[in-house]
């Protein structure tokens, strides 16, 4: 019971170290693995996004270039005269439409910005564009793709215009690109579920409509992030579309993965974005797997730790139990000697008062006898009771005396007279002394003395005391179990390991319970009735055997019998 607390703390220490020590590297591996994988997954996601965006840009650039070359082809193969009427223009327009239906209209302008011919859904003929920004631009550069603007028609569109010089005079061919078609084409980027693409101009205004709300020509809230000159595709791994969806606060914090690239045909920035959650959805699945592994792994570690701790503790308990019992045996041996001396002292002190009781009793007895003689006591019954009490006093003093005698004997530690003893002769001598008693109780006494048995080193008197004690105990146990029939007492002697001789006294008596077997060597432990046994027999034996540098063991089975084994050092002179 007193071990419970240290046990608990030990359990805690072992358990925590058994859990923590594997857990730390395990978690480290998990986390490192997770982070590396996360990075590589992210990189791959970003790379694939870049690839898609690059492809997309090429497609848009190609589209713009083709539309431009369409117009250049027309302008190179026609003269101003052949196109300056709307009818002629219509014919060309229809041809153009067969190449690309992205052309909404076609118009021809003279040097002064006058719209001389037009074919298309609007009525723009005769309007003067001299001050329009695109007109100025094309007059200067020769080829111009405009930003999206509202223009006279008040509808967002952009145009491609090309100037041609003919006999000192310039004229201009212009076509409007179908906003819807362009929009669709730009927007038709497929990246995950939330992917979208749009174009902003140098001022950050939407040139196409993003899928997620906002109108063309509105400014992109994140334009300040994107609008910077760069080559190739640039990615931003975390762009918060703060303020993107007005009035949709839950979407406000959506984090985006963004890739941008400048078009080649026109200083427009292609922006592709995808919600991060969506972009890295593979990562999430991966995270779940890692989490699962972590949980299962931890559970396994904890389980194993608990399991092993239990076993370890059991083992430790076993070992410390063994150690404790070893220790207690040692303590036992030294204590026995001390106890012996102490007990002898006590016994001595007790004997003095016992002697006084004796004397007093004798005196009383004497006086009583006198009184009786003189007929001073006439009550016969009282007299008898008194005499009975007197006798009891003698008996009880006698009993005390036998205890003190036994204690004194026990405490007596005379130096043993060590000599070589030939057990072939010695054992029969001793069994001889008990053969009468055994015979009366119907106990068959057997001796099995191995021929190889060497002499032992010991004190004859002491060894006799030990064996007689063991025999007497055995006879008692046998009597208790069998009465006067069927008892068996066997003494076997044989050489044992480490130059020793083993004397085993085996009986088929009552046996000793597990509980008692630990105590039988303790002084005063007895199961006999009060007054019948002192409980010193075995402790004396133990002390003696110890003194002879031998060992003493017991094994017993309740209802089967008991074997006491005494090992004594063999004589160096070998066999006698």
């Amino acid at each position: 019971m007193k071990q419970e607390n240290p046990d608990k703390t030990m359990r805690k220490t072992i358990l925590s170290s058994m859990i923590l020590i594997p857990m730390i590297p395990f978690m480290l591996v998990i986390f490192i693995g997770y982070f590396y994988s996360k990075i590589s997954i992210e990189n791959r996601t970003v790379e694939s996004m870049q690839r898609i965006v690059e492809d997309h840009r090429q497609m848009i650039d190609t589209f713009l270039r083709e539309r431009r070359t369409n117009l250049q082809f027309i302008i190179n193969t026609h003269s101003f005269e052949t196109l300056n009427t709307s009818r002629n223009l219509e014919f060309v327009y229809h041809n153009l439409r067969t190449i690309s239906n992205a052309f909404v209209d076609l118009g021809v302008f003279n040097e002064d910005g006058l719209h001389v011919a037009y074919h298309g859904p609007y009525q723009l003929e005769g309007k003067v564009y001299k001050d329009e920004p695109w007109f100025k631009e094309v007059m200067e550069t020769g080829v111009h793709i405009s930003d999206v603007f509202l223009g006279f028609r008040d509808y967002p569109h952009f145009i491609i215009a090309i100037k041609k010089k003919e006999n000192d005079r310039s004229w201009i061919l212009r076509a409007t690109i179908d906003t819807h078609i362009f929009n669709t084409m730009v927007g038709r980027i497929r990246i995950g579920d939330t992917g979208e693409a749009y174009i902003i101009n140098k001022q950050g205004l939407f040139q196409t409509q993003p899928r997620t709300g906002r109108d063309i020509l509105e400014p992109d809230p994140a334009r300040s992030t994107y609008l910077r000159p760069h080559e190739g595709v640039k990615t931003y791994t975390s762009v918060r579309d703060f303020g993107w969806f007005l009035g949709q606060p839950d979407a406000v914090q959506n984090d985006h993965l963004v890739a941008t690239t400048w078009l080649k045909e026109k200083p427009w920035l292609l922006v592709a974005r995808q919600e991060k959650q969506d972009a890295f959805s593979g990562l999430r699945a991966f995270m779940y797997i890692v989490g699962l592994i972590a949980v299962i792994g931890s559970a396994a570690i904890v389980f194993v730790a608990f399991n092993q701790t239990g076993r370890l503790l059991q083992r430790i308990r076993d070992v410390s139990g063994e150690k404790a019992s070893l220790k207690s045996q040692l303590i036992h041996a030294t204590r026995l000697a001390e106890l012996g001396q102490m007990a002898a002292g006590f016994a001595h002190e007790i004997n003095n008062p016992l002697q006084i009781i004796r004397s007093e009793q004798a005196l009383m007895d004497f006086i009583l006898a006198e009184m009786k003689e003189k007929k001073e006591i006439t009550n016969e019954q009282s007299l008898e009771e008194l005499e009975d009490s007197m006798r009891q006093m003698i008996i009880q003093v006698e009993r005390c005396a036998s205890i003190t005698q036994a204690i004194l004997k026990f405490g007596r530690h005379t130096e043993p007279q060590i000599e070589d003893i030939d057990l072939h002769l010695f054992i029969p001598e001793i069994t001889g002394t008990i053969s009468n008693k055994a015979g009366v109780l119907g106990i068959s006494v057997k001796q099995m003395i191995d021929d190889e048995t060497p002499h032992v080193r010991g004190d004859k008197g002491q060894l006799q005391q030990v064996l007689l004690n063991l025999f007497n105990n055995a006879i008692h146990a046998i009597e208790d179990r069998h009465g006067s029939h069927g008892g068996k007492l066997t003494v076997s002697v044989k050489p044992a390991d480490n130059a020793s001789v083993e004397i085993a006294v085996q009986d088929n008596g009552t046996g000793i319970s597990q509980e008692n077997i630990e105590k039988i060597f303790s002084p005063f432990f007895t199961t006999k009735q009060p007054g019948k046994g002192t409980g010193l027999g075995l402790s004396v034996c133990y002390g003696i055997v110890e003194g002879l540098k031998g060992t003493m063991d017991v094994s017993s089975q309740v209802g089967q019998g008991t074997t006491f084994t005494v090992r004594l050092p063999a004589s160096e002179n070998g066999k006698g």
Partner: protein
Amino acid sequence: MKILIIDDEERFLHSTQKLLKRKGYDVETASSGEKGLDLLLEKNIDVVILDVKMPGIGGMETLKRIKRQHPTVEVIMLTGHGTAEYAVDALMWGASDFLIKPISVSEMIGKVEVSFARRLVLENKIRAARDIEKDRHPESKQPINNESRKDK
């Protein structure tokens, strides 16, 4: 017969003396070895019952002194703790018996009687020897000790 009991247990002295007196013995008591030795000088003691373990000079020493001063006085050792060596020692120093407490009073009396008988025998022998001596050398007067015989 005069008995001297030397023991440090007063009550033992008291009740044993009372009992022995009632039984008709002449009993003296002393509670230490020194007192016992004094008494031995004063009175004619035949048998001493001597406790071994006592404060002061102790039983063994008392035995030695008694035997030195009064060789014919019989000493019965009485002890609460009897080891064989001790008993052998005591007998070697001239004790006539070695009894272990507790002993019944009747047993004790038995031992005392035996010792006394032995002393008588011994004294008679000595007296006879002295008489012969006296016959041969009437001038030499050498008493063996300061005691004279006095029967119970």
